[in-house]
């Protein structure tokens, strides 16, 4: 499956980009400290609002912080928020969705009701309200809140899938054989949902990163940390664009976009696996088909 996933250029590009950002998140602080000899929070009073230079490859902020160092250490914070939100959100979605789909009856009704309540609530606004009070809150706290309020969307699809699986023959057979429901869910049903779950996880990850940056833009952030969202927010409040400080405003947004793009590209591959009908639509196949046709036409013309 992994091999199939990696077959397309889109997925390969996505995975490469994503891996790059993961490395940045893991080794970022080490890189800034030992390779760049910079701190993301240190203020260099001799170089306030300075454009890119040898000392500050991406320039400095209005208070003299090194943008490059902020960008690198921001990777960890932003991705951590995305990861926590995604893991939590996907877990809740899987637990609620699969349980509802498999259990049916009263349990299903109750869980579906719960899901619908969460769907109806003004998600982002509530996240904004709550995280505003959590003392700024680091990326983990923000991620948890995003996850807690953002799971409902995916649950619905999982429930439908689990329901359709429930009536499939092999699951019915297992039930007849007296398999416990728990084992049934873990061994028989979950593997079939892996495509859905991974797509949901990836979507949740990007959603988490975007939500974190949106919250930072609204002023919900922990001042002792630096995330990409906080960087954009700071640069906006520091009038970076009007003062022509593009080196402060542009990089964090581009990084989020690139990270999102990498995940979106991976998602293309995951989608093609979970929906076989999409596979025929791949560019490589169509190209080959067109070539074959053309050569036939050429032969015909002769």
């Amino acid at each position: 499956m992994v091999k199939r996933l990696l077959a397309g250029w889109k997925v390969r590009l996505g995975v490469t980009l994503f891996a790059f950002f993961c490395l940045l998140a893991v080794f970022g602080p080490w890189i800034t400290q030992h390779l760049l000899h910079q701190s993301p929070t240190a203020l260099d009073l001799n170089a306030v609002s300075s454009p890119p230079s040898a000392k500050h490859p991406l320039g400095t902020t209005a208070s003299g912080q090194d943008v490059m160092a902020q960008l690198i250490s921001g990777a960890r914070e932003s991705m951590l928020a995305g990861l926590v939100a995604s893991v939590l959100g996907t877990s809740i979605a899987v637990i609620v969705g699969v349980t509802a789909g498999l259990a049916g009856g009263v349990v299903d009704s109750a869980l579906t009701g719960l899901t619908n309540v969460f769907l109806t609530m003004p998600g982002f606004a509530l996240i904004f309200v709550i995280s505003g009070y959590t003392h700024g809150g680091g990326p983990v706290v923000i991620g948890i809140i995003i996850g807690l309020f953002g799971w409902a969307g995916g649950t619905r699809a999982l429930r439908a899938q689990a329901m359709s699986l429930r009536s499939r023959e092999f699951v019915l057979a297992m039930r007849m054989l007296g398999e416990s429901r728990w084992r049934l869910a873990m061994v028989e049903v979950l593997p079939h949902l892996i495509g859905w779950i991974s797509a949901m996880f990836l979507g949740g990850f990007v959603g988490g990163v975007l939500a974190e940056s949106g919250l930072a833009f609204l002023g919900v952030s922990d001042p002792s940390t630096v995330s990409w969202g906080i960087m954009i927010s700071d640069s906006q409040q520091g009038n970076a664009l009007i003062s022509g400080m593009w080196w402060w405003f542009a990089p964090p947004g581009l990084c989020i976009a690139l990270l999102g793009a990498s995940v979106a590209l991976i998602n293309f591959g995951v989608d093609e696996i979970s929906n076989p009908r999409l596979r025929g639509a791949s560019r490589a196949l169509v190209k080959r088909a067109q070539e074959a046709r053309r050569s036939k036409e050429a032969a015909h013309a002769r």
Partner: protein
Amino acid sequence: MPADDPGTLLDVRGLTVEYVAQQGSVRACDDVSFTVRRGEILGVAGESGSGKSTLITALTRLERPPAVTTAGEILFRPGGGRAPVDLVGLTERELRGLRWRDMAIVLQSAMNALNPVMRLGAQFRDVLREHDRTLSRQDAHKRTEDLLALVGLTPLQANRYPHELSGGTRQRATIALALACGADLVVMDEPTTAVDVVMQRQILANVLRLRDRLGFAVVFVTHDLSLLVELADRIAIMYAGRIVEVGSAFDIYHHPRHPYTEGLRASFPPLREPVRRLSGIPGSPPDLRQPPPGCAFHPRCPRRFEACDGTVPELRPVGEQSVACLLYGAGERAGSRGPEGVREEADDVVGH
């Protein structure tokens, strides 16, 4: 040449259709040749995966990527004394001129073949008015009612959505639809698989009656050989993308030559004869991604011999029918030609 004969409606030569995949490709139809005369019903029988559905879409030039026609020609002689055309060489635009007016299709599942969000009448109307721009709405409606009456449906059913109709009604409606523009050739892809036996009989009777009345030719594809015997004038048997035997319905049924035809015949109960013991064909159809060398049927063949896994048999006349089996005239050409040679020959034919 049969194509020069005005009585020949369709002359397929060396038709090869491949499914292009990431690595290599699969030949779903391999060097298929046959002819259909005007007003004739040609049955094509084969197991699932034998390439008969691919043949249907290729015949009507409806194949979609990754399926590609890579060789052969389909000479079609439309009515009204028009010159014969090679469908393979036509553009989509040119094809549109022929579609439905000259050739129509009936698909396997009428439930899926009808647009679920359009009323039945609208699905008649759009095709009628597409091919006759002068037709008014009222006239199109009138014509729809006539067509539905042809297959025994009431005019009221034109106002229904497909899901509101029973399976048999839907299937009859698609047949009526196929006749809407007076096509010379109607290609039918297992139109009776989704309906019960009683309905199956009604539909077949309908087709025969309408053919006699309107004179169209039919290419009828099914896995059910005994059904073809009732319906078809001639029958072609397909196996692993190739035609292994062609002959009159009577000959195929009563004197099958190819071991596969024999096996196929033995696995279906006859419609009108006393029930006899049924037997299936051991084994399963080959994986076309890795076709067996030589005759594709040889791993399952009860009468195989050494040459069978080395030589691809060609379709050659044996008595009244044509058979592609080394049992007939095997000695002459054993081991002389591989599949490459066959293709070269096909290309030569095209080149003329």
